[in-house]
């Protein structure tokens, strides 16, 4: 999967995605999911393009949908997307200390989602359905059960080492 830099939108790639969903307006969410998979976020240009290309849509509608759903991000996400579950079970078993440990480790300021080097982004999700393993973190698609501040720090250390960024 290639990652594009912002402001350089390859419209042929967008056309391909739109076509694979039959250019149908009802497939907008799936189209945006695919676009986000490619770019790791929804570039403004891409949303405008989709909004003008598909019949029955406008850029405003696309923006509306993109901002409604928590999954979509208008800012680039990191190579490693960290999700901290703060569902009921995780919350009562201490998901907040885990979250704080990640914020400290990545030096994330209040409101900052992606680490300065663009490697990690952090998201709180409501429930991943793995309540028996609470508290749970997910990095990309890998589930890390029964997390503690120390355990998640070790996970991040390993990833940083792999990336040679520590």
């Amino acid at each position, binding site marked *: 999967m290639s990652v594009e830099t912002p402001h350089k939108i390859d419209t042929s790639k967008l056309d391909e995605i739109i076509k694979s969903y039959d250019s149908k307006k009802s497939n907008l*969410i799936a189209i945006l*999911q695919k676009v986000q998979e490619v770019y790791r976020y929804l570039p403004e240009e891409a949303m405008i393009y989709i909004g003008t290309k598909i019949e029955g849509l406008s850029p405003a509608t696309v923006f509306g949908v993109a901002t409604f759903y*928590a999954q979509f991000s208008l800012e680039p996400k990191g190579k490693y997307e960290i999700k901290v579950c703060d569902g*009921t*079970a995780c919350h009562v078993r201490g998901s907040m200390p885990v979250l704080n440990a990640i914020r400290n480790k990545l030096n994330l300021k209040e409101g900052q989602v992606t680490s300065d080097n663009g490697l990690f982004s952090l998201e709180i999700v409501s429930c991943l359905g*793995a*309540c028996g*393993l609470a508290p749970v973190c997910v990095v990309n698609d890998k589930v890390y059960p029964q997390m503690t501040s120390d355990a998640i720090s070790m996970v991040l250390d390993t990833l940083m080492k792999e990336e040679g960024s520590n």
Partner: protein
Amino acid sequence: MALNIDIKEEQKRALEDIKQQGLRVLVCAGTGCVANGSLKVIEKFKELGANVGVLSEYDKMTTVPTGCHGFCEQGVLVVIPDKHVTYVKVKEKDVEEIYESHIKNNKPVERLMYVDPKTHEHVQDDEHINFYAKQTRTALKNCGNINAESIDEAIAVRGYEALANVLKENNPDAVIETIEKSGLRGRGGGGFPTGRKWKFTAANRGGKSYIVCNGDEGDPGAFMDRSVMEGDPHKLLEGMAIAAFAIGADEGYIYVRAEYPLAIKRLRKAIKDAEERNFLGKNIMGSDFSLDIHIKEGAGAFVCGEETALIASIEGERGMPRPKPPFPANKGLFGRPTLINNVETLANVPVIMLNGADWFAKMGTETSKGTKTFALTGDVNNTGLIEVPMGTTLREIVFDIGGGMRDGKKFKAVQIGGPSGGCLTEEHLDIPMDYDNLIKAGAMVGSGGLVVMSDKTCIVEVARFFMNFTQHESCGKCVPCREGTKNMLKILEKIVAGKGTMEDLELLEELAHAVKDGSLCGLGKTAPNPVLSTLKYFRDEYIAHIKDKKCPAGVCTAMKKVVIMEDLCKGCTKCARTCPVGAIDGTVKNPHHINQDKCIKCEACLKNCPFKAIVLE
């Protein structure tokens, strides 16, 4: 209608295939166990099992990756039915021992068995593990017992038999009648009678209509729908097909949260396999009935569990609810009549059709029939997914199935039904839990999330937690929900921070009623429930936060006060050196003092004091 498939023959063949597998070793491959490393356990078993011919009674063993057993915390779970054994917390390195000792030489490995928290004894099989012993599994029956990715194994356990019968008899009204008679009610939360919902939609037979399965299980703390979709996807597809036949739909959607990638993967495979066998698609089993099922992935919006919002989301729009009527039964997806049922509801349908309405109606209470799944979490010994007859008491769930309170903590309450539900206390331990009794107690079955709380859980904090959730998830369409939840949250945050007043409490209650009465959809109408029910049963705790500035559970940091007991302090200066914010003053050999304005309550001093002179007040 004559069918071109003899399902009984298919079943026989599938059972024969299973027999050919020899000794079956079931390894859980649900989300929980995969996170605990079950894929490696499976690989290891497969590697060892390739050694055909060394087993005493079997000429072969087969490792079967199954769906969720529900006992996620004890994962990885390995079940060998023929040996009547369930192994828990199995790691890759344990596999060889199980193989050598138990599979080859018939000597069970005791150290990998479940330990009963009460008797401290090792328990060999499910029938005796307290967690399973009191359960009645119908919707979850096959989860964990079959290979979740094999349609043949689903057929072997009577999968698609009910659909074949229904198509053979070709009487949609009789199907609706059976469901109505069974007393099945919607398992997604509301508890609306399923048969009646089908009838409303069926009244519009003739044109295009849709069947939609609601798999947007957004309630934090509930995961029964995920388990069904991952562990027994064919049961869901069969339930959908029967429902579609009954109401005259030929197209269906399953709306699944994007947070459930494994469920989406298994469902996609199941749909493809079912189409290949002609259990879905055109002219199913040679009948006149056709059904195409698509999967729609959600994108992270709790409100999409509300049926009109879900419809908007499938149509590719912002998932905002709209007023009812018109009900989806008349005007739903793409403006056509639409039946929307929850995953667990649909998973009950094939079982009811096979065993009859009376069989189902025998389970449960007067007004709530059958069984219900609950996601049991929190401060109990056994956490996981359970299924019990409606009317089971809370005491049985917490103290028998749940194995009692964890770490000897004291039972305080359970929060049932997630952000839409309420709490139940000691006085409710013995009421039979069903839709109506719970509503009477100010709670609701909801999706079935059940969080057990001890005296170490702050009830005000829990109410704040849920309000924070619903406030975030409010779609913003109607004012009572959008503004009301925001202000309720503000008040709760104020109380938790030790800055609340008694007037705040009154305002909170007033707002709660306004939001409940004035909101457009179920999200807003039920959002105040956690506040209202905790106010009803734990008002004292709210007042303690407000008047005494104390958190009785010792949870709320703002109320915590770390102090040094002067008579015990030797003036060793260790605490002053440990404190990360320099909040501790004092000179050597003289009692130290904590500056409360600077203290961040990290308790580092408390943990490091060699004389135990620092305490939490």
